[in-house]
């Protein structure tokens, strides 16, 4: 697998790790923004081998984790309506809503389909003109172009039975919120490589300027992450605060301008609620007025509460802000497990809690002989 295998080379990885060890002199807290990076850091044992001066904080970049509870309730409400086919990405299905998950709604008889591409949902709408097809359009900037494209396709085909329930979130406003939070204590960020492959990294220049923090765009393979960490540590040790790009094989400064155009044609930036964090100004995408006929929120009278309370004792918000780590939660591995998740980060494969539960040997009561 070109562009993957090379970045998993253990010898090169050890070399970069040694370079990090030789560079670091002070304690630094680095937040990786994306859940895919969290998963890879823990699965590949990188957090276990980093020098003790470096603490990795796990950021809010897991779309499943930050999708607000009331939207999951809305999706379930729609799925339970007669004649509705609700289409979703796979890992949204197990997230508990306030009453149940989509997976439980499916077991109860709702027509819920797991898709890999939103364009597939448009196909389903085309094949089933007597059904209302709703796509649960969640995600960061990465999935926004394909979700937007599905609306454009539906319009071109003249479909009147297709709509999307959007919950799109954006990275730069989240970084601003984290930096403004008096409790958070972050020295630098690894920006999410795939978000930047769409959006580029020009958006981060003002952030670096304002907060004097290094931001390094990084990929997801072990070598990508180690290189990203090395570049960050070098900046920190040298007192620099710049935007740098480790993921050059995928990311250009300007990003993918065609994808950005599709996004701006269909969506408009608006306020967005982040599960566990709250409302962040101008941090999400909503459908533009001219596409309102494809907005499931407007098309259906959805009877669910807009404010729902999070489960007791879930510290997902603090975890995603980098204030706490999953093992500091009283429920972790006890009441809250992937089988019976209390909070969303335990559900998604990209959630920090699930990553710690699934891969890390650090917090388990097992003896490993040396």
């Amino acid at each position, binding site marked *: *697998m070109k562009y993957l295998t090379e970045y998993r080379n253990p010898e090169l990885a050890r070399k970069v790790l040694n370079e990090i060890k030789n560079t670091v002199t002070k304690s630094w807290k680095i937040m990786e923004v994306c859940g895919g990076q969290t998963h890879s850091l823990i699965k590949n*044992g990188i957090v276990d081998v980093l020098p003790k001066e470096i603490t990795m904080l796990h950021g809010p970049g897991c779309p499943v984790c930050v999708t607000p509870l009331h939207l999951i309730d809305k999706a379930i409400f729609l799925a339970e309506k007669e004649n509705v086919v609700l289409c979703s*990405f796979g890992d*949204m299905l197990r997230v508990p809503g306030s009453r149940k998950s989509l997976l439980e709604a499916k077991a109860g008889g709702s027509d819920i389909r797991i898709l890999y591409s939103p364009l597939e949902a448009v196909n389903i709408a085309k094949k089933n003109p007597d059904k209302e097809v709703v796509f649960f359009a969640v995600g960061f900037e990465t*999935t926004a172009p394909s979700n937007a494209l599905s609306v454009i396709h539906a319009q071109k085909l003249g479909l009147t039975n297709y709509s999307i329930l959007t919950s799109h979130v954006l990275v730069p406003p989240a970084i601003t919120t984290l930096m403004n939070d008096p409790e958070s204590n972050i020295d630098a960020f690894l920006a999410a490589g795939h978000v930047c492959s769409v959006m580029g990294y020009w958006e981060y220049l003002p952030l670096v300027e304002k907060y004097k923090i290094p931001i390094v765009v990084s990929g997801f393979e072990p070598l990508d992450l180690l290189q990203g960490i090395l570049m960050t540590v070098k900046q920190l040790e040298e007192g620099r605060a710049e935007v740098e790009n480790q993921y050059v094989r995928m990311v250009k400064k300007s990003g993918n301008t065609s994808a950005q155009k599709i996004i701006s044609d269909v969506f408009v930036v608006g306020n967005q609620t982040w599960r566990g964090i709250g409302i962040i100004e101008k941090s999400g995408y909503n459908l533009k007025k001219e596409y309102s006929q494809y907005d499931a929120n407007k098309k259906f009278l959805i009877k669910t509460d807009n404010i729902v309370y999070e489960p007791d004792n879930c510290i997902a918000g603090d975890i995603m802000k980098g204030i706490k780590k999953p093992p500091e939660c009283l429920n972790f591995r006890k009441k809250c497990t992937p089988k019976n998740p209390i909070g969303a980060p335990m559900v998604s494969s990209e959630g920090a809690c699930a990553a710690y539960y699934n891969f890390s040997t650090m917090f388990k009561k097992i003896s490993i002989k040396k």
Partner: protein
Amino acid sequence: MNKNLFRLQCPIPKFDFDIITLAHGSGGLLTGELLESGVFNLLKNEKLDKRHDGAFLNINGDIAFSTDSFVISPIFFPGGDIGELSVNGTVNDVAMCGAVPQYLSLSLILEEGLPIKDFWDILVSIKYAAQKAGVEIVTGDTKVVERGKGDKIFINTTGIGKIHHKANIDIKNIKKGDKIIVSNNIATHGTAILSVREGLEFETNMISDTRCLNHLTLMLLDKFGHDIHFFRDPTRSGIAGTLNEIASGMNLGIMLNNENIPIDSQVKAACEILGLDPLYSANEGIFMAFVSESIANYVVDLLKKSEDAKNAAIIAEVVDDHHGQVLITNPLGGRSVVQMPVGEQLPRIC
């Protein structure tokens, strides 16, 4: 014989109907026609021909006995169909007990509206798979359910076979130092099925590896006898789920070596794209053998001579450490725990 050639030799008989209706399950004339010209004629053997309520068998000694139900979608998939799967699945379960699979029962639950052409194709596959595995279908049943009460066709098979005279397969025989060998590439079946699921279709020439494994396991038992401590086919929950199941019952641990696990590059790439872990992906054409360290390399060499096990490899070791758990090495030399899967793997968002 090649499967397509085999099909040509079993042309569909002339029926007065093109779809299955409730009348085919009523026990009347239509049931008779379906069974006589269809099932009995195709699967013909001395024991089935007695047309009794059950089969008369004569087996001396210890036997292994296993049952499995098959409820898959889609019923035809790249590289096989539900018919072949239902024979191989039970044959393999009997084989994993260290037995020689001999006889199968076949129970069909058909949904009203199933095209006769599909029904025939599945039956021919059953005959083909049974012939390949060297088993006879000696008794069975056919029922029809109303449209919407089933999903085209459900199949149950039950199999029995005599335990091989040199076999001593028991989880208690697994010892520290045992090597765990996988007979061929992992995750092939699960990924091939996923590639044709509605909504996830992707262009590929991946095909399921469904096959009978009894010839391979018997070859190993003939040659190595008691040095083979345990067999298991890692079907639904993949090698991760199966190894966890085995480890949880032991006062020992299992250490998987990431680099040695054989996997087809296309399968690996598909799993990368979908965000699935091949360790948890379903398998239908491979087994794992727990064997004494002293014979491990010989077992791999012997397996590799067979087309059905050409990628056999030692993938793990039984260790007196992290009892009850499965650990895997990772590229940086660290180790992480391989958990028991919670449910079906779900493709990720991005």
